[in-house]
């Protein structure tokens, strides 16, 4: 990858043939010079786009109408290519399709620089890029899809008519949305199962002797897998050339800001260490813990034990609210001893993992408390587990009962269940916050259990450092809202210089909270 020539000179961009295809695998890095301000703008715009992709992904069913509409409008606002049927020179004075594709290309590669550095960043970046890619691939016309496959060397073998006939029954009953007629009409491809993991995972495909039998219409999942793998490898490679990039002082601050912006507050830096005493935990759990943590605490008290998933989720949360390592060790030990674990066993088996959580063992990573996104999307609970998000993972009936036990009003429960039905888990939790704290409205947008706790403490007037947090959280809220509205109006203005000035102000506001 050539990075040296890219940013040093000011100059105009070149329209290349690279941008004939509406969609690409980002296999080749851009080979031109761009201005520093364009570099910044492109990066920030794509980051906004990816954050939108993330939020929409949790609030709406992917590929649903609302999802598509909202994503389309965001793509349009930020001048990225959206539906490819659009005529090349539609908006007078606005960027051409080719320019949009160029922006797409360059911004992707810039963000790779920022997001290749840690496992977490890579995972996040890959997830959003894959979702975005899926959305755009599905928006291609059939002819364009075929072209894309052909251009990108995804040749898989089609099965013979004879084999298709033999397997017809099985293909119909295993492959999603396929009838007997479609089996006859379409080609089916034999793909090694490792290349079709999404379909295998959800059991939406017929598997035989290690091969997945994919109808032509489902090739998108294969393509996605391929995209994900390529991107993952590319990020690993990018990480290695990072020292050279970081030595450029103009880029380093921007790249740092970019990689921190995705998390917002991540509660990794402990504030108020030691301000919470162990005796307070029981009462705090009833007043200020989000439902997931309250549930975990209760299970811990009742069973004097929690499995690994629960220990991680709850233990890290406690770290986030300010428990010190010594306190944590005392807390877990005293509870486990009441159960089947004796002191010695605790010290040998469990103490290690608690110290690990605080970054005092092994590779000494200081683990960050899980955000709502992480709790909702990864490691679903199974038999004997109490972790996860109750709004996402609990049986609706049991959830209702639990809310009743926790004295939520019947009308409140109805509101919560509506939100749960619509898969708006974080909004449901926010509603729970409102009902248990007796407030009409919450000024924050819930995205983290520790955020729930600190907001609650603020409201109830307890805990330290509340004011600072409030200012930070509010500022990030305000700047996010402002930058998106300002971005929209800026796009509508024709003048270049004004455009640039707005973007710079925009950039600062966007990063105010970091």
């Amino acid at each position, binding site marked *: 990858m050539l990075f040296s020539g890219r940013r040093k000179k000011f100059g105009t961009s070149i329209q290349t043939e690279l941008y004939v295809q509406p969609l690409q695998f980002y296999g080749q890095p851009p080979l031109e010079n761009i201005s520093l301000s364009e570099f910044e703008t492109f990066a920030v715009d794509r980051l906004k786009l990816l954050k939108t992709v993330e939020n929409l992904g949790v609030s709406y069913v992917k590929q649903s109408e609302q999802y598509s509409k909202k994503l389309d409008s965001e793509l349009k606002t930020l001048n990225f290519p959206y539906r490819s049927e659009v005529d090349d020179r539609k908006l007078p004075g606005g960027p051409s399709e080719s320019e949009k594709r160029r922006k797409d290309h360059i911004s992707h590669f810039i963000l790779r620089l920022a997001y290749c550095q840690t496992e977490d960043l890579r995972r996040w970046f890959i997830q959003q890029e894959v979702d975005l890619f899926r959305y755009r691939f599905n928006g291609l016309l059939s002819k364009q899809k075929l072209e894309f496959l052909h251009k990108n060397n995804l040749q898989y073998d089609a099965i013979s008519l004879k084999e298709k006939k033999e397997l017809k029954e099985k293909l119909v009953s295993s492959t999603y949305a396929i009838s007997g007629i479609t089996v006859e009409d379409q080609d089916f491809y034999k793909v090694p199962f490792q290349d079709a993991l999404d379909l295998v995972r959800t*059991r939406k495909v017929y*598997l035989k002797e290690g091969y997945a039998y994919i109808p032509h219409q489902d090739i998108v999942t294969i393509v996605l897998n391929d995209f994900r793998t390529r991107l993952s490898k590319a990020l690993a490679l990018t990480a290695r050339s990072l020292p050279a990039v970081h030595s450029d002082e103009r880029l380093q601050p921007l790249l740092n800001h970019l990689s921190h912006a995705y998390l917002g507050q991540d509660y990794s830096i402990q504030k108020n260490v030691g301000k919470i005493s162990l005796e307070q935990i029981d009462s705090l759990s009833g007043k200020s813990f989000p439902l997931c943590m309250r549930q975990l605490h209760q299970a811990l008290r009742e069973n004097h034990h929690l499995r690994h998933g629960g220990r991680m989720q709850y233990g890290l949360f406690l770290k986030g609210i300010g428990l010190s390592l010594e306190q944590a060790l005392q807390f877990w030990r005293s509870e486990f001893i009441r159960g089947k674990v004796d002191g010695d066993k605790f010290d040998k088996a469990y103490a*290690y993992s608690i110290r690990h959580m605080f970054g005092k063992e092994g590779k000494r990573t200081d683990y960050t408390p899980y955000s709502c996104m992480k709790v909702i999307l990864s490691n679903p609970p*199974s038999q004997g*587990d109490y972790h996860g998000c109750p709004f996402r993972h609990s049986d609706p009936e049991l959830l209702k009962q639990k809310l009743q036990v926790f004295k939520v009003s019947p009308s409140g429960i109805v509101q919560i269940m509506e939100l749960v039905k619509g898969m708006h888990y974080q909004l449901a939790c926010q509603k729970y916050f409102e009902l248990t704290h007796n407030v009409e409205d919450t000024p924050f947008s819930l995205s983290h259990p520790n955020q729930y706790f600190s907001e609650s403490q603020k409201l109830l007037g307890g805990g330290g450092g509340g004011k600072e947090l409030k200012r930070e959280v509010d500022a990030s809220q305000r700047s996010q809202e402002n930058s998106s509205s300002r971005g929209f109006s800026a796009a509508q203005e024709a003048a270049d210089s004004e455009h640039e000035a707005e973007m710079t102000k925009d950039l600062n506001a966007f990063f105010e909270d970091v």
Partner: protein
Amino acid sequence: MPSSDYDSACLPDLLPLYYRRLFPFYQYYRWLTYGGVQKNYFQNREFCFTLKDDIYVRYQSFSTLNELEKEMQKMNPYKIDIGAVYSHRPNQHNTVKSGSFQALEKELVFDIDMTDYDDVRSCCSAADICTKCWTLMTIAIRILDRALREDFGFQHLLWVYSGRRGVHCWVCDEAARKLSAAARSAVAEYLSLIKGGEDTVKKVVLTDPIHPFIRESLAVVEHFFPQYALQDQDILARKESVDKVLALVPDDVKKELQQDFQNEKKSDVRWKLIKDQARKKQSTAKKGQHFDKEIMLQYCYPRLDVNVSKGVSHLLKSPFSVHPKTGRVSVPIDLRELDSFDPFAVPTISLICEELDRPKTGEEEEKVEDATEKEDERDASEKRRIRDYKRTSLAKYVKNFDQFLEGLARSWKGELLRKSDLQKEF
């Protein structure tokens, strides 16, 4: 029944004997070297030993069979776990630049633990097992073995009794060892039908069309269900268990059944009534019509811990490791005799140590012939060891392991021919 009284306090005396005279080092080494097709495969493998007083020692690795043997005889581990094959020797991982030391390959593994079924078995709970609930393991093995072979194309599966309350599966095909974490988790999820924790009442929901994998699994479950669930577990007898079953049925059907059950007390007839109701629903409704199948699956279908299978570097108890609490050896299970496998007949370390002192009649003669061709390749101590374990109840399980290895060996012979410059390290 051959299980001498086991007392965990005797482990310090029994383990040295076990590791000097009974542990099948040669076969173990042969397995983990995989024919020497890949260089340093054995040398870069992580072992984890748990020593006396729960001292846990990770990142152990060995250069040769000899070193493995000597170290184990020196340390006398209470428990042995096998980890991944890394990029460098695990015992030197501290000298490697951080970030470069990576887990590269490992067998695809599955862990089925009886405690995960506590909500559906009435005979035992927690660490206990009995012959009644052991059927669940038989069902699990049949379903998973078929799927791993027929759906995924794997061929070299080693099923092992964990020593207390479950079974493990080691999928040793080359393709399996090279799977990424994402692929492992996809395989595990394909095989998972039970979704939900403490708070989920209905853990299995089937929708049309029913995937061939589910059909095949159902066929196995249906075979065992009448004996296992209706008789042994008696799920349709006591009110409490009947209520639990009926909680899995749609409300309208539930009311009818509750009425019918007032007059009908026999379990098999009650089950027939449930099935009839399901059949009725299937012809009319588009959803919630498979509740009879869902019940069977919820009570019998294998429950895997996806986390065990997901991680490339996840440690799992080694075959032939001893379970410190029960004393039983983790032995390979012969699937041809699966239906007659009895976990309580698995030898304990006390038994086989005791058997060393007295000869075992009958079986000893047969085994000697098998050994003669191979004995020439091995040294004196190995020959002595073979004579030793063949005198004990461990013999038949080492034979199971040998058969598994023979299958594996056929696969790497082809590879070796291709890489003819590689030296065998025996």
